[in-house]
């Protein structure tokens, strides 16, 4: 019983982290039909912004929760102007886009490694601190930064949902995801919407980076190692759908935590996520909430 209850808590933490990263990835896919292989390394960048602030400059980690989203959003918008817009204007095909994203991912990861080195680093925080009442009342472990991840993810993603549902930007993003030609002929400002989509995607994954840095630790392949799991969340939920990414994140996190109890080998946790993704692609490529149009 305790083992199962603990697995629920672990799933909630992992799912909340995945969701922050997955929503940005799926929004970019929806608007641009671009599979951004550099998304994981953008998460790493966010984690290292936290490291610079917290360890190198000795400032409170709280600052990183603002700075990392800003820096990574700026980076993402920069790639739109320097890389993606010129590539789209040149009429690039799918393989060109995939390889461009891979090239960008490699460049960013090794630039991070160039600056900060290849070792594992830790924030100067007490990440063994646990929530006392959860321990006393239920005899379960919930780390302070785990709880923070769950709360921040919840608050931020409710904000994203409101943005998508209630604002002009959100409407434009959903319109572009649905049908580019129709959206453009209805007067949606494509360039502006795309830039803001990158900013939002970067901000979300930058925030995820700081939370990953606090709950896991910081190393140059942090984001790349999470990337396929994040793809799994996005695909299971339905690529292009923000709510799908949210749902898919918890589906993947719960499957990993519970199936790993069945397999009885913690080291296969990530593999479980990949296998579920492949099965979903074979059976229902549009995922749980995705539209058939998004995958055709």
């Amino acid at each position, binding site marked *: 019983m305790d083992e199962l209850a603990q697995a629920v808590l672990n799933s909630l933490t992992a799912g909340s982290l995945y969701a922050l990263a997955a929503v940005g990835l799926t929004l970019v896919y929806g608007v641009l039909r671009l599979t951004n292989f550099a998304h994981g390394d953008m998460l790493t960048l966010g984690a290292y912004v936290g490291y610079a602030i917290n360890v190198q400059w000795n400032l409170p980690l709280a600052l990183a929760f603002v700075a990392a989203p800003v820096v990574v959003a700026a980076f993402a918008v920069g790639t739109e102007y320097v890389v993606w817009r010129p590539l789209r204007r040149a009429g690039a095909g*799918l*393989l060109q886009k995939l390889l*461009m994203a891979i*090239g*960008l991912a*490699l460049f960013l990861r090794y630039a991070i490694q160039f600056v900060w080195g290849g070792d594992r680093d830790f924030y100067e925080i007490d990440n063994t601190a646990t929530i006392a009442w959860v321990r006393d009342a239920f005899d379960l472990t919930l780390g302070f930064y785990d709880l923070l991840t769950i709360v921040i993810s919840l608050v931020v993603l409710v904000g994203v949902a409101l943005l998508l549902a209630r604002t002009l930007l959100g409407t434009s993003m959903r319109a572009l995801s649905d049908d580019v030609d129709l959206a453009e002929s209805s007067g949606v400002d494509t360039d502006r919407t795309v830039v803001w989509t990158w900013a939002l995607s970067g901000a979300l994954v930058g925030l995820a980076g700081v939370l990953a840095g606090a709950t896991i630790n910081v190393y140059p392949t942090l984001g790349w190692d999470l990337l*396929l799991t994040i793809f799994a969340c996005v695909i299971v939920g339905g690529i292009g759908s923000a709510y799908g990414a949210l749902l898919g994140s918890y589906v993947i996190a719960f499957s990993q935590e519970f199936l790993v109890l069945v397999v009885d080998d913690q080291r*296969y946790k*990530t593999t479980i996520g990949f296998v579920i993704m492949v099965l979903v692609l074979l059976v229902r490529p549009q995922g749980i909430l995705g539209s058939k149009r998004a995958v055709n």
Partner: protein
Amino acid sequence: MELLAEIGPWGAVATVAGIYAIFAMGLQVQVGHGGVDNFGQVAFFLIGAYASTILVEQHGMGLVAGTLAGMAIAMVAAVIVALPTLRLRGDFLAITTLAFGEILRNVAVNERGLTKGSAGIDAFTFRIDIVRELRRSLRDQDILVDRLAPLLILTWVLVLVVALVTWLLLRTPWGRVLRAVREDDAAVRALGKNAFAYRAQAMALGAAWAALAGTLYAWNQVHFSPSGFEPIVTFAGFVIIIAAGLGTIWGTVLMAILIQGVLIEGSRYWLDTGLPNAQEASLRYMVVGLALMLIVRFRPQGLFGSRAEMAAADE
């Protein structure tokens, strides 16, 4: 007489370049000719290295038989991977094959009974039995050979064989249908050809070359572990075939020499940045990433390819 008595660091670089030439040739068959954007080519490299090593070192199989068995297992694995994934759209195929490579690497780390896990596994039969015997018998005739020279020569003989076989295969009716499949799937099917089967066969042939490269990698390393099979290996292969131009055979060999040899492996001997080793290594891969971006943006046809090849790859 001295025959390659001292091959020096560039000899070792040339061996690795040859291994990557074979590896990239497999990718060229799949991507450049079959139109299958396989992002998990390293999986077949891993299968070749581990299967041949386990069969030879633990089950007493001969080196040639072990190598061929590794290639055969990789071909079977390629068909198994191809069956469900070839029906997927391009980017899903890329993600799925990438995941396949990572799953295999996870298995290699975790199944210690089979692979000895992260500690790594030894493949010393070639270096010990073959090379030592060869050098001893040559020394009796007063011929001195570097201990790395036999693998260097073997690798480059195999590069030529693989390139020639690939070149010839693509000039058979099979090769012509394969190209047609890439360019216009529907037209090929209208002629009664099974486009799917042609793509699966391209996957299998490419996997066989990757497995051969994997076995040579194992012999060259003597001791290797799952950390040698990260996705970066596949992407180095992509940089090579894109720089050469999709579809090119001899360009692939040349680019393997320039990119894997001169740039990635060799730059430590000709480039002195004054930086610490670790930073210099990071810089090397930053250059690789940047080069990939620049080629994709400004010269998608590569150095030797035609522009139509990259466009056709999207169909």
